[in-house]
């Protein structure tokens, strides 16, 4: 059987390949794929934040940071695909910095809404017309993926021994904390972080659901289909949080709703793209219409939550 040396996949037997992929995930052997996914997610986020911050006219220099970081994270993800060392060092570092940046962005967005006339006393108007409140944290999703990826094993067959020392340089921790950290890292490395990923899925679903809610409120849910992400998101969140306690939920409800979410995201992307082209001038003013039409990447972010959910359902759980 022909196998590509790195991943063990043969392209001639898709069912068998799917099984291999599933095992890889369950064993935590998907660093390269996740690095690539990180790069892709970062590219999408980067494009989105670039033009959204252009709408905000880069009124503060800090608005350039997510643009720059998403480009760096993109390259780090590509690098992580090719090199284990880059995945474990550069990708990890850039991901952490990007996560910090997304928190800074969240602070500035909340502050920006407060500084609009009426501030938080006019919550709907100012969230809709001000900076999108959860967008920076959703932007952090790609960094979260990158961080996870930096701890995983790679798809090749060579076993990697767990590292002895915890990855927290210079700090003195108690023995239990040290052991916990080591154990967490090992869990990730071996694919046993289903619950953590379920939590991430739940939070991500809630945030993008809320974004969908107030954004669709802007045109008053003119199309009934606009309710679907608003209904699915809390369902996905519920399934995700249930999966933290309940292993059965993690392998039944969670993947089911996650797939629905992904399908809904695809439909949303289609509707948004159609909405962009239906704007006055259509393709003749395509850049402007992308800027001010329905945000074409937003449904994909909801799809990202769904993808996290699917990934979570495939993972192993911690032994404790």
């Amino acid at each position, binding site marked *: 059987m022909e196998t590509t040396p790195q991943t063990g996949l043969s392209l001639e037997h898709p069912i068998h390949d799917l099984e291999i992929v599933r095992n890889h995930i369950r064993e935590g052997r998907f660093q390269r794929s996740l690095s690539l996914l990180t790069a892709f997610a970062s590219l999408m986020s980067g494009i989105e934040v670039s033009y959204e911050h252009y709408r905000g006219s880069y009124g503060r220099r800090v608005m350039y940071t997510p643009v720059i970081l998403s480009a760096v994270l993109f390259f780090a993800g590509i690098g992580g695909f090719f090199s284990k060392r880059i995945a474990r060092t550069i990708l990890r570092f850039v991901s952490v910095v990007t996560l910090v940046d997304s928190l800074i962005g969240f602070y500035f967005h909340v502050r920006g809404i407060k500084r609009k*006339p*009426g501030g938080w006393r*006019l919550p*709907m*108007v100012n969230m*809709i*017309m001000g900076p999108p409140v959860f967008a920076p944290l959703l932007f952090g999703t790609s960094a979260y993926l990158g961080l996870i990826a930096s701890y995983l094993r790679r798809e090749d067959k060579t076993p990697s021994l767990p590292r002895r020392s915890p990855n927290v340089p210079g700090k003195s921790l108690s023995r239990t904390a040290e052991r916990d950290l080591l154990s967490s890292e090992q869990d990730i490395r071996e694919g046993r972080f289903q619950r953590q990923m379920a939590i991430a899925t739940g939070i991500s679903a809630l945030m993008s659901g809320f974004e969908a809610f107030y954004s669709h409120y*802007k*045109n*008053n849910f*003119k199309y009934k289909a606009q309710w679907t992400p608003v209904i699915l998101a809390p369902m996905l969140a519920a399934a995700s949080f249930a999966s933290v306690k309940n292993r059965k939920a993690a392998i039944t409800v969670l993947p089911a709703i996650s797939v629905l979410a992904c399908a809904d995201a695809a439909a949303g992307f289609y509707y948004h793209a159609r909405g962009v082209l239906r704007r006055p001038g259509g393709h003749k003013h395509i850049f402007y219409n992308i800027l001010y039409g329905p945000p074409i990447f937003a449904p994909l972010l909801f799809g990202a939550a769904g993808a996290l959910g699917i990934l979570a359902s495939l993972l192993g759980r911690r032994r404790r």
Partner: protein
Amino acid sequence: MTPEVPDTALLPIDPDSGEPIMPRLQPGYYSGFSTLSQKPFWDDATRKVVLERVEKKEPIRFFKPAQARFWTTVFDHLIPQTDRIPERRIPILPALDKRLFLGRTVGYRFENMPHDCDVYLIGMDAIDQEAQQHFGGGFLSLPHLRQELVLKAIHDGEPKGAASIWKRMSVHRFWQQIMQDAIDAYYAHPWAWDEIGFGGPAYPRAYMRLERGEPEPWEVAEQRYAWAAPSHAASGESETTHEFYTESLQHRSHSKGI
């Protein structure tokens, strides 16, 4: 107090049934819409100015009583309000009276117009003379439709009488001025905003639905109904023509065919 019995000849008509439409609280296609209900969302300075406009009864200080009666009647033709119940009619004369009393103007006077304070006094004479010329009686003595026809002659720029007055006051600029004063008073009022579906003051809360005419959550969707001008009205027509390109020609009558 006996309620006013509406003269049905002065009421707008439902074109399907031919019946007069009874006066209502709020004519217009935005039934249920109230800009005043949104005043908690206005800023203090704006709220004060707008509420004063609604609540305060301005005394009449510039016009003498007879002049006030005269011009109130004229304004009832320029901006008729018989489709409104009496308690919800928008006063027009007080705002004009205040402006003239304070000597406030728009900041310019056309060469062929007297000063604002004289326009209304001279104009009153001119309208009375026009009424005499057309129907042999003073303006106020005429029935409603004839009053309207007298004013229409001036609107058309074809007055039959008062030639000496129109020599020192442009008939077209005069008409423009009295219409502008009427509009200034009527459409500054929140009840008029409700009638036409205008959002009213918008600070600090402004709009989030800018396109496709979508209503804000607190605005109301349009509910159109058909209506025709009353039978005793001569002011229901409009003329759209694109024969005029300059302002000096436009403000004269279209029907003159210049």
